[in-house]
């Protein structure tokens, strides 16, 4: 049997997790077909994105986690260089400099850093696992801070917050003292006015429009209102696939990417949303379960951090389209159209599967 190549290829795949993923990807494609108003070009691209992501997932699941450990600092350095590259040679879109053009596709390094920071931090704590103290934590903070500041300057507030939280989760799980968390939390609270004044005007407006979206229906709050109308008018059962007026009549912006959840909510209603929530929850729960089964610090920390990154991406996207938080540019993992997001999300799952499969390989 071992000679049978497909079996060997898939032997590391967790079947439960993969089934859930495929179900979610299918729902995503169905929603995208309606959201893009049957743009088959775009759907074709998304299928290619999924295939690339799946390929990477399978490859990563086969890789020995020791290699992750070995390459973590290099990946981190490459990510930093890419971010620098963005700052100098990146191209602008929608007023922010987030992309660089590599040969035939546009790469968003801030998505890649979502993987490299957890790896780097896990590497750090794994390496010093027997003498974790305030020095380790300080170093960890520094590793986290550098890319965050660079992303903040793009400017991409959403991703910066997401990444720093994911990093913080690792530091938290690695045993940062609760006293320190309490004190620094208080410190951040005191620094809020200063941070506020450092935000771009449009970022301030987004936060303000969250407090009262009606104050400027055609300005900053417009997207938020249209999105809430889309979800709200979907009702309990939804308007049916491709019957969402908000979507089909273009009242909703960015239907294929950031606002795809609103499209889903409008067309499939509350019932559909509960379904999606259950699938997401199961995926995350399965990952947490796998993390608990792991045997070493490195694996646990990475898995927990990646799970949290996935979770917070889901949260940030759904919270913004349902009007809970400001509109920030954040795709919905596994569903939104977009190559980088899809590939990176699937890669994360691939890493987790590898860590889970090889859980006994990395001995302490």
């Amino acid at each position, binding site marked *: 049997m071992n000679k049978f190549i497909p079996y060997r290829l898939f032997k590391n795949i967790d079947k439960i997790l993969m089934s859930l993923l495929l179900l979610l990807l299918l729902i995503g494609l169905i929603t995208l077909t309606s959201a893009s108003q049957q743009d088959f070009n775009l759907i074709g691209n998304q299928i290619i994105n999924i295939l690339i992501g799946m390929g990477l997932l399978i490859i990563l699941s086969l890789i020995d986690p020791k290699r992750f450990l070995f390459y973590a600092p290099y990946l981190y350095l490459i990510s930093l260089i890419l971010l620098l590259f963005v700052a100098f040679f990146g191209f602008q879109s929608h007023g922010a400099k987030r992309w660089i053009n590599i040969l035939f596709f546009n790469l968003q390094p801030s998505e890649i850093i979502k993987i490299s920071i957890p790896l780097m931090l896990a590497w750090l704590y794994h390496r010093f*696992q*027997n003498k*974790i103290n305030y020095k380790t934590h300080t170093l960890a903070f520094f590793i986290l801070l550098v890319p965050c500041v660079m992303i903040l300057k793009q400017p991409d507030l959403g991703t910066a917050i997401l990444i720093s939280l994911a990093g913080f*989760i690792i530091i*938290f*799980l690695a*045993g940062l003292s609760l006293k320190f968390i309490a004190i620094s939390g208080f410190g951040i609270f005191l620094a809020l006015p200063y941070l506020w004044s450092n935000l771009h005007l449009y970022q301030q407006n987004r936060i303000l429009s969250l407090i009262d979206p009606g104050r400027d229906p055609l300005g900053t709050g417009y997207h938020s209102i*249209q999105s*809430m*109308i*889309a*979800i*709200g*008018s*979907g*009702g*309990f059962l939804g308007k049916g696939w491709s019957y969402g*007026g*908000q979507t089909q*009549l*273009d*009242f909703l912006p960015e239907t294929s990417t950031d606002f795809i959840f609103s499209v889903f*909510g409008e067309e499939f*209603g*509350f019932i559909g*949303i*509960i379904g999606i*929530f259950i699938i*997401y*929850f199961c995926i*995350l*729960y399965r990952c*947490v379960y796998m*993390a*608990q089964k792991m045997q*070493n*610090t490195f694996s*646990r920390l990475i898995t*927990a951090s990646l799970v*949290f990154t996935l*979770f917070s991406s889901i*949260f940030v996207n*759904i*919270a913004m389209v*349902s*009007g*809970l938080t400001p509109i920030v540019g954040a795709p919905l993992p596994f569903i939104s159209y977009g190559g980088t997001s899809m590939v990176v999300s699937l890669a994360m799952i691939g890493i987790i599967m590898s860590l889970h499969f090889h859980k006994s390989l990395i001995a*302490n």
Partner: protein
Amino acid sequence: MDQHKFKYFFTRRLNFLFGIFIFIFAILLIKIFYLQVIKFEDYSSLAQNNSLKIVPIPPIRGQILDVNGEILAENKLVYTLELDPKKNTDLKIVKQQLTNIVKITKYDLKKYSKTLSESHYSTTLPIKSNLTDVQVAKFVANKYKYPEIFLKHKFARSYPKEKSGAHFIGYLNRINKKDIKKLKKLKQYENYIGTDHIGKTGVEYFYENRLHGQPGYKALEVDAHNKVIRVIETVEPIHGEDITLNIDYKLQQVAEKAFGKYKGAMVALNPNNGAVLAYVSQPSFNSNLFINGIDETNWKRLNDSNHKPLINRVVSGLYPPGSTLKPFVALAALENNIRRPPFSIIDKGFYTMPNQSKTFKDWKKGGHGEVDLIKAIAVSCDTFFYGLGVELGIPKLNIVLKRFGFGEKTNIDIPNEKSGLIASVEWKKEKYNKKWYQGETAITAIGQGYTLTTPIQLALATAKLINSDNNLRPHMLKKFNAPDFMYEDEINLSGNDTDNLNLIKEGMSLVTKEGGTAAFIGRTTSYDISAKTGTAQVFGLKKGEIYDETKLPDKLKDHALFIAFAPSKNPRLVMAIVVENGGHGGSTAGPIAKKIFDAYLNEIK
């Protein structure tokens, strides 16, 4: 830290985080439940409003026709260039862009901003109206260059007779804030969504409800770019009703022509039903100027003119009736059995008040000799009526004057009618807090003093001499159902004694016979005209001064008045004429009346 301790530590913290996940998922789900289930109806209607657009379809206004179907007010298809005020297009750029197609003048720009300030519903607004075919063609050919300028075609009101009949036809103007307030009060505002114009004067104003009609609408589904996806529902408008007036435009033209350059008013009625057959107020104006808001130059010219062309003299012009009041005064005397023929006086050219030395002159030096009531009307003997008035007294006179409609609106279907004035002791006390002198009674009896009438009142009063229908009322509209209205005092014309009336009519028929004050107009007619001339003083003569028409400037000359009906036996036409500063009634107003009678009685019928 050993592995076991770390694992314990790690698991605890991981579970804690997972608890937070669940908590946050729950918050998200609650928020979505709130949006989709609790607030579903709100968002559902918001979604519908997003895509539903109602476009009003304005009704086409009814036409105004004369009795023979001649068009007095119609709707013409016009092309306009319009801007969307929401887009805040720079007017200077628009002006420049259009240089080669049509010239946008300063006046156009001014008018646009005025229209913008008064615009009552959101739509595009005209920057240039009445484009020629060439201009339209040029614009269409270059349309792609001007995405923010829209070519629209719509029906615009047009008055083909221009100055002719302007006062009774009236005109439309753009709906302003005052109109909106009024329409809202009348709960009519919804009917005007999509309409720019509303009747402001004349029949256009009075019959606004019938002429306007009811708007329809199109319910459209639009996308976020306002592009129409489909038509959900179309409700056709109910167009305005065409209305036919009693006016006989041929007679109207004759009347206007007969007036020539004189100022004044003329109204001709059918005595049998009160139908207004001709209606002249001179000088006149071109109603077409008003349709889209009159420009300043024209407005100043019309409004500041000494000749007051904008005043509708037939219903708003107040004139002392002069001797045209005498037939009614005489009737009052007969009803009170005063001076009934064969009673007569010897007129020496003046009247002396009883118990006073004060005298009142007759218009004819030396007097008319022996005068009875009939001759007094025919020759308009002042001396006879001074005495009659003093004997009769004001209260008894006023009873008859009121019965004939003096001092009260006729309720003609034309707006802004004035009620005129019948003076009395009580009125003077209240108004001036002054005593009434007997001398004032004497001059009131010859139509001078405080009494004021409108031409339409004079015409109606004359018609009432012939027709004793209590409900007789002048009206413009042909198919006319008198709405309920009440005179302030009950009027009962059936109380008129036929013998008395015949005496008055005999006097009036003699006016156009030899010796009468308008004898010359009766000489050449094939039918009998009954009439009464009148002269109203504009300029008070000082004691001892002699009125010499040739020496006075035009505007101080007396007003000439004339009331008449013909044929005398079976009257078919009644009219009242006032020629401002026309001098003596018989000589200027009389010939005008004759031309109108000739046209109506000889040619038209």
